């Protein structure tokens, strides 16, 4: 069990060794986002901007204009929300190669409460032209994405979690932008990202025993969306999305935009139903917002009966 934020930190150290133009920036949350792992190895290439996310993102753009490869982190809620306009004007509009990482995403941050729970960051980042959006499902995938990103052009948003989770992918899997089939099935396609992928796997297992044969696909790259998911959806004829994010504008939004145009099918979006988060343990909140395994099974079961 490791957290995706640790995959970010380890990935940074790897790319720091590979390319000396890699620079890392944080806004007073370096131990939480894990960017401090890079600071420990390469202190001269680490810049703490203090609690000034906007200025940090603009400066990242400046570093990019002058040949550096900036990796910039804070909590997801602050880097995408507080610095949104800085990202739009300075990173996405000029299509600069800036890598943004938002940690402590979703409601799994728990006790800090609604002010700190990022539930619209995927929507915000996905709406920006040129932005790439990656929500890895485990430590290995996160680390691989960070290493692979050295070869990507333009801006990227990577969303990580504080909560630890099981590894789903092997540590040598590498990273590409394709959807990943985790289990084939014939009745319904489950598309998930982040912490919800493990829940999708577990739910599919249980549902299989109730006679519902789920196809499970990890869709960590939400933009650009891999349209090959349409093959699975046309096979099963039904699609369910699972994300630790608002049902508006995130993974569910992206998939429904695609299917509405190319392959209208019955769809269920599992996520946070247009409400803010609140304090509580991660488990309590997953239950309350209907993202825990039981709720997910019940929702899919009901969807299949309708």
């Amino acid at each position, binding site marked *: 069990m490791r957290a995706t934020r640790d995959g970010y930190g380890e990935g940074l150290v790897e790319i720091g060794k590979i390319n000396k133009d890699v620079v890392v920036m944080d806004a007073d949350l370096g131990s939480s986002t894990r960017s401090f792992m890079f600071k420990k190895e390469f202190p001269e290439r680490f810049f703490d901007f203090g*609690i000034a996310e906007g200025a940090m993102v603009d400066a990242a753009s400046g570093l990019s204009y002058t040949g550096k490869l900036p990796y910039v982190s804070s909590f997801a809620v602050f880097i995408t929300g507080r610095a949104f306009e800085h990202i739009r004007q300075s990173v996405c509009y000029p299509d600069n190669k800036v890598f943004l990482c938002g940690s402590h995403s979703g409601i799994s941050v728990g006790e800090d409460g609604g002010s700190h729970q990022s539930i619209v960051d995927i929507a915000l980042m996905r709406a920006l032209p040129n932005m790439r959006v990656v929500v890895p499902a485990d430590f290995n995938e996160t680390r691989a994405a960070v290493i692979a990103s050295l070869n990507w052009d333009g801006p990227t948003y990577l969303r990580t979690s504080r909560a630890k989770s099981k590894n789903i992918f092997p540590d040598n899997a590498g990273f590409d932008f394709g959807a990943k089939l985790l289990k084939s099935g014939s009745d319904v396609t489950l598309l998930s990202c982040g912490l919800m992928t493990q829940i999708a796997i577990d739910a599919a297992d249980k549902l299989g025993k109730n006679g519902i044969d789920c196809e499970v696909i990890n869709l960590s790259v939400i933009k650009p969306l891999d349209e090959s998911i349409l093959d699975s959806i046309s096979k099963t004829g039904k699609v369910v999305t699972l994300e630790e994010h608002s049902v508006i504008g995130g993974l569910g939004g992206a998939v429904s935009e695609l299917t509405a145009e190319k392959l209208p099918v019955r769809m269920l979006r599992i996520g946070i139903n247009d409400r803010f988060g609140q304090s509580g343990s991660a488990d309590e909140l997953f239950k309350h917002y209907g993202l825990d395994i039981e709720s997910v099974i019940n929702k899919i079961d009901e969807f299949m009966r309708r």
Partner: protein
Amino acid sequence: MNAKTERLERVAKELRRDVIEMIYAANSGHPGGSLSAADIVAALFFDVMKYDAENPHLPERDRFVLSKGHAAPILYAALARRGYFDRKLLNRLRRFGSPLQGHPDSRKLAGVDASTGSLGHGIGNAVGMALSLMLDGSRARVFCLLGDGEIQEGSVWESMMAASHFRLDNLVIIIDNNDLQIDGPVREVMNVHPIAAKLKSFGLETVSIDGHNLDQILDALNTYPCDKPLGIVAHTVKGKGVSFMENNVGFHGKAPNDAEYKQAMKELL
């Protein structure tokens, strides 16, 4: 030192005990910045501010905005002792369904004048409240408490600019200058000094005080500048009152363990 400041010092110690109790019970939360602000909050809620806990939405009340929202425990401790809610609630800090959210939520708890948590927003809310009260011809004042790390946010300075542009002499901006943020000492992470000179240059009437000296705190809060906002730079010690938390960056956002809890409560007797 007189009877009043002695009383307020006792209050501040009680508030500090509540802070430790709450964070220990929650097993998460922010002790350092709650303890550094305890004396200022005691002076505000137990002497300076005019309000009625029985009638928490009274339009003519003074307002308090905790811009450094992570110090919620010190605000909750003061509200509880002033009778805004049953003290039993204090051990529900950060729990599911509790009005005592990890960061203050104005929708869930009467007495919280503005929802905060993301740094650098409370001060702008305070500016708006002060403008509104001024429009109404109200004599109420607005007090806003910020962290010294928090003032690295550019929005803080946009709000300072607006506060003095609109001549908000009903607004008091207090900086809890405890010299620490999360990643380390403020001077090392991202230097914001000189703070008092910055406030002054933004047009605030500015005083620097010892933020643990109640005489100085009261004197400062009872200053009424004309046509300009008041800025108070309060020199404080993060974790003040608990020896092993004092000046310890590790206790910014960490609950005490069993032994630390016992030790802290002993020191705060």
